[in-house]
């Protein structure tokens, strides 16, 4: 195989594996702050129980985010040296600000947030939680600014074949950035909402009826039910923004070949790149025109208009449908669970059984969405500025293939272990319930050899 496709797969695998963890920590930090603030306001210790259960998940997830993130910062140089050579003047400062403001804020105060509850005052501990949550979000801000700039570059000029910044405001707040950032932050919120709801439902199914389980369950379901309609609206706006700036991506997502009015919404099809048509198509007449242009005669761009400068159709078409389908499922599940919990104060077992696998639905939707937007940028690495193959380094295919195989094997093992540990932690918390009196309330030293040194 050629080193280009191997390097692309390796980068895709690394970043896919990495994004699983920040997606959780970005929003989980704020949920932990919510637990903490509820405890500060009510002094109900069940909130702290929920906090301690989920702060362990946070610690584990954060560690995975750090180590897989280090891999990312090296990958630019090992596989894609042309990227920094061409646009380093713009990507550099954005990455630097990410490391400086965000990474350090998170990493430095994480220790206090995790282990400092009885070493610092309650106020400082709350502040540490705020700083870590704020740090993860700032981290997302800078990375999304850079990613959006690669999709819709602005505020620069090319001098001597290298990009130079002319307007930093335009670079950071480039046309797609506000939409992508909002979409991603909401995706993170939804991922965490369903993770908390799903693992709490697992505790519920194993017979746990502790107050902290109910509090976490209601928090997860509540956040999910509130965020999902907002996400559907923001996703639609993001799509319209993409239509304006990257029409070829939209054409591929809709598997629409010819530019024109009255374009149908394709629900199911097998797009055929060679024949430039769809097989087995099931479509709603005028659907795509109505969604994208808000009237039936609206003109929707078609793939044939873009010649060879267009992304592959199959992954975009199906990636988009997986994301939207997961979103619809999230809407149904979170709203019915919210109705039962808030109106009937109970959770039917079939619904609980459905919620357990949905714990990881956020991952599915987030990855599918990222595949759509990143593969949709091809053949460009930076739209209109740098093609992907131009950035490739000189490392031979054999070496890339070797490292790729090892990465994939390692990631598979880690993913299984991670999910296994989450389930183990949930079951353990479910079995213990809310121990009374709480050791931390009594303020006596803990002696749990198994727990020591987490």
């Amino acid at each position, binding site marked *: 195989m050629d080193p280009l496709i191997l390097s692309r797969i390796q980068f895709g695998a690394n970043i896919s594996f990495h994004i699983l963890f920040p997606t959780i920590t970005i929003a989980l930090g704020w949920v932990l702050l919510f637990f903490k603030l509820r405890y500060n306001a009510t002094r109900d210790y069940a909130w702290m129980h929920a906090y301690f259960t989920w702060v362990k998940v946070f610690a584990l997830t954060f560690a995975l985010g750090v180590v897989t993130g*280090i891999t990312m910062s090296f990958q630019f140089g090992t596989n894609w040296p042309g990227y920094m050579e061409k646009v380093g003047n713009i990507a550099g*400062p954005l990455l630097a600000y990410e*490391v*400086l403001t965000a990474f*350090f804020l998170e990493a430095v105060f994480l*220790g206090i947030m995790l282990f400092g509850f009885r070493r610092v005052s309650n106020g400082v501990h709350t502040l540490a939680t705020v700083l870590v949550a704020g740090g993860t979000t700032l981290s997302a801000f800078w990375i999304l600014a850079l990613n959006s700039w690669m999709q819709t570059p602005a505020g620069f000029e090319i001098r001597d074949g290298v990009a130079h910044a002319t307007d930093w405001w335009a670079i950071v707040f480039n046309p797609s950035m506000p939409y992508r950032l909002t979409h991603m932050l909401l995706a993170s919120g939804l991922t965490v909402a369903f993770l908390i709801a799903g693992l709490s439902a697992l505790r519920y199914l194993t017979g746990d009826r502790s107050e902290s389980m109910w509090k976490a369950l209601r928090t997860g379901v509540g956040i999910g039910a509130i965020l999902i309609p907002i996400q559907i609206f923001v996703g639609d706006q993001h799509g319209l923004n993409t239509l304006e700036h990257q029409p070829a991506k939209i054409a591929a997502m809709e598997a629409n070949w010819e530019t024109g009015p009255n374009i149908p919404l394709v629900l199911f099809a097998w797009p055929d790149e060679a024949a430039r048509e769809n097989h087995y198509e099931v479509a709603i007449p005028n659907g795509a025109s109505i969604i994208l242009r808000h009237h039936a005669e609206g003109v929707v761009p078609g793939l044939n208009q873009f010649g060879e400068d267009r992304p592959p159709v199959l992954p975009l078409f199906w990636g988009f449908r997986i994301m939207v389908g997961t979103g619809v499922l999230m809407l149904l599940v979170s709203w019915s669970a919210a109705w039962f919990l808030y109106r009937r104060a109970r959770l039917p077992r079939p619904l609980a059984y459905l919620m357990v696998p949905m714990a990881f639905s956020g991952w599915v939707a987030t990855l599918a969405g990222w595949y759509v937007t990143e593969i949709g940028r091809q053949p460009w690495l930076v739209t209109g500025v740098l093609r992907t193959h131009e950035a490739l380094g000189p490392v031979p295919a054999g070496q890339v293939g070797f490292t790729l195989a090892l990465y994939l094997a390692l990631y598979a093992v880690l993913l299984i272990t991670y999910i296994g540990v989450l389930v183990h*932690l949930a079951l353990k918390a479910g079995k213990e319930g809310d121990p009374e009196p709480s050791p931390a309330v009594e303020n006596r030293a803990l*002696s*749990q050899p198994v727990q*020591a040194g987490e």
Partner: protein
Amino acid sequence: MTYDWQTLLPLIFAGLMGVAILVYVILDGFDLGIGILFAAADDREKDIMVNTIGPFWDANETWLVLAVGLLLVAFPAAHGVILTALYLPVFALLIGLILRGIAFDFRAKVPAHRKRRWNMLFLAGSLIASLAQGYMLGVYVLGLETGLGAIAFGLLTAVCLAAAYGAMGAAWLIYKTEGALQKKAVVWLRGALVLTAIGMAAVSLATPLASPRIFDRWFIWPEMLYLSPLPILSALLFVYLWRETFNLPKPGDAHALRPFLTLALIFALGFAGLAWSFYPFVVPDRLTIWQAAAAPESLAIILAGTSLVLPVMIGASFYVYRVFGGKASDLSYD
């Protein structure tokens, strides 16, 4: 040399990158070292050893991201050359860091009977990462050569850097623990110190011999005179620390931090020597910091952020080290 921004900014960033690498080597050095020392510790000791680094290691590793980040953003051209030349050792480093990072968290959260497996991986990951760093140091010192000699030299520096990290880990344990484990750490320190000294001597001799340019930088009068404190002071500190290992721990555990600080000083001296050898090159004998630097306006905007954030971060780090100061105790989330 004219002193305009075009000249000064790459110089400032080379300095910042040097500081970031040095801080990384010292800070992550002790927690990687503790991972390596897992090889000689029993299960109860392993728990205590992990408790001594628990609140710090995330932040320690962040300095590596800062160092590589600065190379990436300030010297984009060099970043590509160095990292593609070191493709496989970089991969080993990353695998090592991933393994130890996750093992660190998993070992305490998996069912108790699986803990030993993750202890093993914590050791393996720490060792792989340290060896990879040492190997990269060796190959870089020889100007990114690929011959058999360079590989052999890389292997020597790999073992010596791993030993140096082990020494850092042992010194940190002397500071953070008491009783039997502390006594054990003194013995570990003594053993690791020998290999550390060999490694530093090897790098110090190989660097000037590998490149006539570096030879001329060191062995010319009067520079020789000004530079002589570097090797002499390092040697004196080694001897001092070696003798100290026979008197540790002191009555009342006085000056328990001193071995760690002495080692950190030795690292700093060695690093200063390397910096003098390679300046002004960022890729040895190929690219100077000015040839590899990003555009001044981009460097200026990074510098503005850095000078604002770095002091705050250093202050915050000191605060965190104080909160978790003193002898290590059981860490718990609640």
